[in-house]
């Protein structure tokens, strides 16, 4: 009898300790998992602390996961499952976003859960993906991830104002010098051409008179006939383009929870 109660006590103790570990899960778990070894030690350290800082501050897990291969699974499912089964996510709804980089297929996928589904709309995910794409393509993974972290931070802050970035409401574009310099030159040329055209016109004052309106006898205009005959009518119709309504599309992952997200290749 004594051995049984001893065993059950030890068992529950282990259970308690194990449970307490899981309670600390989200704080203890790493937010940067570099299985594909794309970053060096110092980059890893800096990025990791950055992700931790943002996640704590915004109360949302910002996770980056790189893999050499995900065994042929879909990036969407893998990202969602990793997030769920490793118990990521802060708060009741387990809010968080995970960026998966799969080197084998060159896939990238952002998976959202909880409040992150609202904060990162389809349009927003598209925007962020496009912003980090050039760096991913170039192999500057550290640059891409740093950028990604900053953008997530910005997006979450914006979402908290109740107006998350969406189709008609994206972050302000940078002042693109590469566009404005040639545009200003063209505008200058056009304006100058119009002005000098006016100056040239000033010089020409001799113009023939095509009509004789000045010589119409007063009150001599008489209308004799004024008929409008309706012939036929034709109607043409064009389909209206459906504007993108914005918002976030979602799916259910294998664990049963709802995820948002989007991805592509790099």
């Amino acid at each position, binding site marked *: 009898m004594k051995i049984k109660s001893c065993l059950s006590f030890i068992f529950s103790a282990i259970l308690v300790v194990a449970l307490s570990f899981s309670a600390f899960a989200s704080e203890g778990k790493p937010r940067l998992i570099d299985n594909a070894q794309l970053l060096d030690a110092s980059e890893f350290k800096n990025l990791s602390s950055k992700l931790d800082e943002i996640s704590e501050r915004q109360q949302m897990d910002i996770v980056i996961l790189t893999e050499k291969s995900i065994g042929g699974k879909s990036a969407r499912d893998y990202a969602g499952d990793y997030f769920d089964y490793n118990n990521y996510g802060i708060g009741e709804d387990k809010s968080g976003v995970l960026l998966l980089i799969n080197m084998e297929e060159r896939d990238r996928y952002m998976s959202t859960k909880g409040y992150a589904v609202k904060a990162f709309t389809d349009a927003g995910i598209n925007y962020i993906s496009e912003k980090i794409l050039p760096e991913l393509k170039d192999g500057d993974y550290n640059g891409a991830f740093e950028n990604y972290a900053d953008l997530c931070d910005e997006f979450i802050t914006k979402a908290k104002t109740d107006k998350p970035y969406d189709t008609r409401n994206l972050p302000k574009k940078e002042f693109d010098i590469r566009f404005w310099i040639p545009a200003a030159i063209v505008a200058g040329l056009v304006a100058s051409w119009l002005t000098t055209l006016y100056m*040239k016109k*000033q010089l020409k004052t*001799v113009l023939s008179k*095509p009509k004789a309106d000045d*010589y119409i*006898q007063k009150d001599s205009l008489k209308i004799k006939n*004024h008929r409008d005959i309706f012939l*036929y009518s034709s*109607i043409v119709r*064009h389909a209206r383009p459906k504007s993108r309504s914005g918002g976030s599309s979602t799916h259910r992952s294998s664990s049963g929870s709802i995820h948002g997200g989007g991805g592509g290749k790099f």
Partner: protein
Amino acid sequence: MADVMEYKCPNCAGAIKFDSEKQKMKCPYCDTEFDVEALKSYDEALKDEKEDSIKWEINKSETLDDDENIAVYVCNSCGGEIVGDKNTGATHCPFCDNPVIMTENFSGVLKPDYVIPFKLSKNAAKEALQKHLKGKWLLPKLFKSENHIDEIKGIYVPFWLFGAEADADMTYRATRVSGWSDSNYTYTKTDHYFLTRAGSVAFEHIPVDGSSKIDDDLMESIEPFDFDDVADFQTAYLSGYLADKYDVSAKESISRANKRVKKSAEDAFSPRGEGYATVIPQKSSVKIDNGSVNYALYPVWILNTTWKDKKYTFAMNGQTGKFVGNLPMDRKKYFAWFGSLAAVFSALTYGIAWLIDHFM
């Protein structure tokens, strides 16, 4: 027994056959539906379209009396004949600036029916020229200073004055467009019409330049002349001025007056401005009738300038003061202006874009 008639489709010109008892018909080629009455009216209107016809009457005028005070000058180089007061002492041809010789012979000069006396003096003409040259950015600097402004001359220019009654008859195809939309489509409805416009309008004293030595466009540019100031011709009016003799006959001048009358008549009855989206003229016929012709002298101040081997003629309406004359362009000035303005506007555009971006 039903009537079978054949009509022309207003849309594709195919032949529509139909039974006169039916109300609506469909063209077998283009599938457009028509109202029977509409087709009938269209058919009638097509048959009504008329052709142009023009008639003129040229009044016979008297010749000038053999007045002792009048002399006819003949120009050495351009062969122009100018009529003037013997006391004018004209020594230079107003058209080509060459010396003129007086001739004895004076006969067969047509007596003008009317003359508008000079209202504005030579000083007024000189001032107007100065004003004309001011503010023209691309005018060569030298042009202003090398001018021999003093040689501006007052000339009576011979004009044929035409009066007319025009009968215009035009047909058009027009459309009215309206649109609306629902949640899935935008719709555009086009209503097609056949329009007839006809009327009459009268003209009087349309001036056509009767001198081949004076540019017709130049004379049209200083129009209009106000006929209210006109006086019956008396040789006394010529004193101090020269008068050009006509060398273009009334017959030759008619076509110019014609063109202007036709254009004015067409525009007077045009359906433009009635709210149609498109107006396409089909047929236009203008009958011009009862034309009377008069010979008149109108006052014009003329100055010829030669600059860089090109002749520039300025003219001022001696009654209203309207001043015209084409000016040369300084190419260097043009490129200088073009370049510097382009630089300024470019910088301005860039600056404004940058500012807006920074403070928005």
